[in-house]
């Protein structure tokens, strides 16, 4: 499975923009990514196994948020949503 890595996560992949990961579900692919590139998964998937607010995951061009979705072949894209700016005050 080919996985497209956004610029913000390439510090984990040795600057590679595309990497290979194995798994029969999206969650399994992300687990394999994390085995290869420790720490990457938690930056995009929270501790309740939800995709973080400003992250989008696409499987073969279709946006998905269910990590249990089966993947037979193709490619996964991790995308930084355009809504990613965070307003702050405290």
């Amino acid at each position: 499975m080919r996985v497209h890595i956004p610029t913000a996560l390439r510090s984990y992949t040795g600057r590679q923009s595309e990497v290979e990961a194995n798994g029969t579900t999206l969650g399994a692919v992300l687990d394999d990514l994390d085995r290869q590139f420790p720490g990457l998964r938690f930056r995009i998937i929270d501790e309740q196994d939800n995709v973080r607010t400003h992250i989008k995951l696409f499987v073969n061009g279709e946006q998905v948020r269910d990590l249990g979705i089966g993947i037979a072949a193709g490619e996964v894209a991790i995308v930084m949503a355009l809504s990613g700016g965070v307003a702050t005050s405290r």
Partner: protein
Amino acid sequence: MAQTQPTVVLIATRKGAFFLHEKEQRTSWQLSEPLFLGHMVHHMVQDPRDPSRLLLAARTGHLGPTVFRSKDFGRQWFEARKPPAFPKAADGESGRVVDHVFWLTPGHADEPGVWYAGTSPQGLFRSEDHGESWESVAGFDTHPLKAAWVGNTQDGTPDGPKLHSVLVDPRDARHLYLGMSSGGVHESLDRGATWRPLIGGLQVVEPMDATNIAFHDPHCVRLCPTHPDRLYQQNHCGIYRLDRPGETWVRIGNNMPREEGDAGFPMVVHPRDADTCFVFPMDGTDVWPRTSPGGKPAVYRTRDAGASWTRLDRGLPQAQAWMTVKRQAMAADSRDPLGLYFGTTNGELWNSRDEGDTWQCAWRNLQHVYAVETAVTPS
């Protein structure tokens, strides 16, 4: 004992972190290249038990929260293997998610490698391996009254509810305090296994009920290193002092000039004098602008434990300066005379090298400053 080495100011901003190195006896400064440029860095702290070690809390607008560690004073950084994260909820239940790691506190001198982290929303985490892995402090996070203490999300600050001001008694590693915005001040005598509120004497926004802990909003709580039974607090509703074993905070902000008020975010204690501390007042009237009252920024200092306050504004702009200084964005070194530092949300870093009597702008054109700490270069 007073610090003899040059001061390094650790500046955490919305767009990265910086080292500001002292030159020429704190009269000029040299800024490092940015660390983690583009990352929202909420706190960067030196380990006083091993000064070559630093911890840094970061996230980005897209990416989740994490902690980075350095063993060589910032030359190389490594991400925590297990960053602070709440326990996974049982199937069918919704669990909490750490939005950002807000506060970092080194553990007791006798516990090398121990750190505490406070998060948004309110969570307390502990590391025993220099920040490599973090575990929820179950005695706090699963406390049966925690939900009542922290209220709902609307009770939090505009940038999310926070756990902050994790304090370790230098005489006893088991004795901890923490503050929550909102959620009050709490104390543990058993290294976090059990907790109880410490809110006697604190006021809340009228007409709310001061016995409801969820309405309490301590902005910054500090413990005096030379007199650990004394705490100071800048609260949403005033400035307070507590002398243990007392249980009732005294509103020493009532001794501030009435036109200045006693609202603010940060509070700094003198490392060698428990009667001396510093605040940076903000406008807490009307819609709470949270800017310097009247556009005239000043630090206020007490040398008598809050019985009286002195306005310190020499060198600061005298008008039309609408500064905001956040709760973590003011710090002292331990030189003699004491150096003080504050960072503003418009990216300025100001310093005093005479205990607040006079001020200089050490650096401009940074980013929104989240936190300021001091450090010394490891020998």
